[in-house]
């Protein structure tokens, strides 16, 4: 077998949303990085819906931007419709969402990878890992070319033993039209890493000119688009890595010329067709063993679980500007092709719709994430990192933020530096990883704002401010951007102080701002601040009491979070600790007492005992 060159610092297996961010983060930190993809035409492919963001996910994308990732910029460049969700709710849960041109998204990301210093892109399918003792040192590929790397990041998405179902019909592959990574799973099993199966699905794609849009309800984008990347803290050189030399990449200015989505509903007839064909569905016919998500049920699930409710909303979303393909959001199914056709014809506006690609369910291997550390490295195999769906998550955004964290950590590992671990109170990325590594998951894990106990601290506009210290510590942003964020932070803090201490008549401005019936204007000095500064300052003033309450809880958590559990610590050796509790903790392997306290079945007395034991050891 041929071995290519010297060892890379970091090898990334897979170039989906996790893989791209991982490769870019590692390379930007100066690590010699290789990203392998079985088909480089599908780099950063949006395999499912043509949209980025949404509630909680939108916040994640802004966190990625705050940590120097690429998803936000790529979404802004490829976005063809922007909407701020929850605009009528409070600022903490307002979330940006964008419909994207799928091809433009993928192409721009590929272009960014191609231009990235320290990064090689290569087309090959990884067929196995090369181990040396308890460490990974490289990988084999289908081209009989081996690569050596000091660290390896696994971002396989749905490709590990991917199996697609359309009724009884089965095809191997992680995405329709693509292959499956069949042998890589064996490497994990050999190394003692357990694998389980999950299932997800995607709806049919229809030809636009065969849809009767006159029967559909139109959903337009916001007149004033909310973009994902932070532009107020970027210099020209930070703007578009790929396109700042020339014109706009996609041929339109981010946020301009929005397209519409469309809404229709299933009918009584749809319900009848689905229920009649239920036995032919892969899910209901017992073809699928993997667990599917509760929040993204197939149309079969909807009719079965919510019997007597035939009307379910469907969104018809364009897949891009230069294609006539439409994505039918809400119609995920594993019914056979003929039933899908019949079902679609029963929906107003889609009576004569032409099916371009059928809906299908896909089953794949994932490695239960309690087997990794919070910095995403395997507990079993040193230098092996996992990110994205392999960890049991779902969604482009969830994958991307893990990719970024894995990329940074692989680079740190190569340098011999301490790992980068986000805390639950740092943002949604921290919540996501902490949930995964301490609790594992029974279904493809998707982020919801309700998963975060410090949700009010996570308003999307504050991502850069929250994550500034990490960005500085690990050199994830340019010097000029770091300085601008610092300045923004100072401006916000001094504005808050001003509003809190200056009076208008009997009361402070802050008292006035906190009254929910107040809609006057503040003095010129505050009103004339940049929008982002003013919005964040007023948010902090208005929510002062609540933010302080959450910060107090954070402080409490920090106390236990700060007590580290040594690597390989055997809880069974702790006197006084119940055996069932010790076994559970050994299984979960918490990195610190904060994590231990979140393991189910561990009570405060156990934590007391551990405090004594760890102080002792």
């Amino acid at each position: 077998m041929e071995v290519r060159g010297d060892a890379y610092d970091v090898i990334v297996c897979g170039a989906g949303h996790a893989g791209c961010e991982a490769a870019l983060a590692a390379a930007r930190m100066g690590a010699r990085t290789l990203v392998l993809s079985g088909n480089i035409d599908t780099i950063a492919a949006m395999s499912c819906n043509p949209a980025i963001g949404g509630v909680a996910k939108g916040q994640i994308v802004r966190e990625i931007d705050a940590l120097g990732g690429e998803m936000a910029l790529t979404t802004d460049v490829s976005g063809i419709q922007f909407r701020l969700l929850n605009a009528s709710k409070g600022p903490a849960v307002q979330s940006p969402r964008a419909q994207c041109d799928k091809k433009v998204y993928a192409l721009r990301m590929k272009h960014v990878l191609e231009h990235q210093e320290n990064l090689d892109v290569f087309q090959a399918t990884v067929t196995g890992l090369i181990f040396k003792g308890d460490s990974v040192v490289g990988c084999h590929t289908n081209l009989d070319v081996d690569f050596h790397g000091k660290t390896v990041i696994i971002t396989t998405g749905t490709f590990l033993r991917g199996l697609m179902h359309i009724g009884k019909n089965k095809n191997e592959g992680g995405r329709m039209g693509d292959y499956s990574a069949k042998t890589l799973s064996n490497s994990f099993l050999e190394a003692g890493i357990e694998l389980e199966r999950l299932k997800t699905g995607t709806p049919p794609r229809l030809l636009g000119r065969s849809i009767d849009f006159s029967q559909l309800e139109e959903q337009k984008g916001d007149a004033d688009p909310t973009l994902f990347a932070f532009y107020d803290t970027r210099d020209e050189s930070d703007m578009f890595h790929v396109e700042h030399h020339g014109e706009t990449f996609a041929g339109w200015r981010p946020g301009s010329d929005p397209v519409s989505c469309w809404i229709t509903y299933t009918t009584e007839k749809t319900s009848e067709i689905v229920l009649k064909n239920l036995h032919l569905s892969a899910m209901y016919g017992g073809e699928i063993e993997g667990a599917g998500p509760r929040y993204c049920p197939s149309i079969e699930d909807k009719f079965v679980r919510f019997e007597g409710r035939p009307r379910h909303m469907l969104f018809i979303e364009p897949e891009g500007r230069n294609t006539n393909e439409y994505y039918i959001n809400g119609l995920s199914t594993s019914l056979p092709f003929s039933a899908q056709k019949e079902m679609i014809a029963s929906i107003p506006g889609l009576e004569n719709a032409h099916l371009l690609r059928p809906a299908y369910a896909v089953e794949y291997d994932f490695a239960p994430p309690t087997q990794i550390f919070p910095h995403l490295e395997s507990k079993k195999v040193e230098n092996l990192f996992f990110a994205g769906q392999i960890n049991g998550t779902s969604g482009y955004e969830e994958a991307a933020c893990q990719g970024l964290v894995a990329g940074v950590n692989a680079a740190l590992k190569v340098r011999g530096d301490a790992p980068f671990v986000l805390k639950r109170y740092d943002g949604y990325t921290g919540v996501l990883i902490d949930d995964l590594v301490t609790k594992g998951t029974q279904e493809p894990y998707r982020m919801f704002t309700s998963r975060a106990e410090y949700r009010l601290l996570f308003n999307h506009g504050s991502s850069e401010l929250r994550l500034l210290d990490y960005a500085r510590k690990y050199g994830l942003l340019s010097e000029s951007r770091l300085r601008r964020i610092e300045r923004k932070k100072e401006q916000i803090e001094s504005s808050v102080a001003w509003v809190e201490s200056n009076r208008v008549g009997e009361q402070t401005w802050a008292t006035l701002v906190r009254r929910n019936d107040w809609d006057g204007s503040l003095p010129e000095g505050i009103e004339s601040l940049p929008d982002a500064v003013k919005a964040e300052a007023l948010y902090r003033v208005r929510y002062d009491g609540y933010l302080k309450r959450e910060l107090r809880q954070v402080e409490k958590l920090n106390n236990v979070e700060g007590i580290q559990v040594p690597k390989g610590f055997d809880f069974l050796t702790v006197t006084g600790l119940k055996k069932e509790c010790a076994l559970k903790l050994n299984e979960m392997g918490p990195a610190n007492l904060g994590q231990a306290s979140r393991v189910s079945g561990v009570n405060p007395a156990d934590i007391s005992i551990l405090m004594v034991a760890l102080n002792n050891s």
Partner: protein
Amino acid sequence: METVDTIVAVGTPNGESALALVRASGPACESLAREIFSRSGSLQPRHAYHGSYRSAAGTVMDDVVYCLYQGPKSFTGEDTLEITCHGNPLIASGILTDLIARGCRQSEPGEFSRRAFLNGRMDLTQAEAVMELIQARSDKAIQAAHNQLRGAFGRQLGILKERMLANVATIEAYIDFPEEDLPEEQKEAYVTGIQELMTFCSRLIDSSQYAAFLRDGVKTLILGEPNAGKSSLLNLLLGFERAIVSEQPGTTRDFLRERIILGPHSIQLLDTAGLREAESDIEQEGIRKTIELAEEADIFLLVRDTALPSPELPEAIASKLSAANCIVLRNKVDLGVSDPGPNPVAGAKSIEFSALTGHGLEALRAALLEMIDARFSTDDDDLILVNARHGVALNELRDCLQSALKKLEDDEAMELVASDLRGAMDAIGSILGRIDNEDMLDVLFSSFCIGK
């Protein structure tokens, strides 16, 4: 590291004993001692002082001995306050509750020992013993909590939790899934839902003996004509001179609150101004207050001067009295008048009494005990909440619900309402065990068809 809060616990076993010890450890100990015992002068460490324990509400709870230890020369290595009170568990719990009301936190099992160890007050060889101790205490605490939660109280809390989850899941569904085809959000339904939860929660608090007996005691109002002997009765019950007693009618113009322990019950005695046609403004004010107090009282002791004809009671008070809540004392039998006359409260127990000689005191005690037992020991007698920690949690729960309700009424952002309700869930969780977010999501996904 964690000396931010001051922890408290009753250090002696639960049950009747000569003395009981309440311990506090943490930075607030000295200021607590000064506050509780109104001590502004020197407070010498390791010196036992005698004082009256005055609760945050101003009631004298007991005569105690207290001693302050300054860290690091104390058991835990932190400032420590030890209060030795009389051995009635109600007094000890009362003091504990009061300390919690003053901002202390009920200690976790073994927390004193843990602090002692972490502050270097124990050497390493003792560490294992400490861990065993923590486990043993925790087992006992879990067993005790388990016993309590097995009964109706636990079941009621379970229902509360389910309803709570349903409300939170609905609110979260509208926050997390704005794109879904959910039925229009009904904020009025949240108001109704939370009001129901509050009623439920208040009922739990009220029906618990903890609230009625430990926090306030059974409110017992002493009523009667001027100079009928109300203050003398109070003094007799207290066993020492407390109320200002004089031959002059109308001496007690304000109210005197005292606490006595009768059997297992704590009783708050309220002496009132005499009921009559008031001649002065001050007296009129006194009578108005008596009527106000009668609104909240649990039990009435109506003291009559048997030498005088039975006077007319003000309607506002007479309407409150019944055979179930009133005992009539025919006072001054020592003066030789024994004509019972018509009973002013139909069917109420009537006792011949002399506040001067103590005649009838035993009969009164027995009647009181019987009445309290009948009134407060509910049929499903497992509606018992003796744990101070539970009481704190339930009050916290009520506060959170109250705050959420206010936000809804003021039309504030739902994320703030949700934040309050999360606090409420934590409060329930502190009794029933942490409520995992997955439980909420289970309810959410089973109630709403989410599936874009």
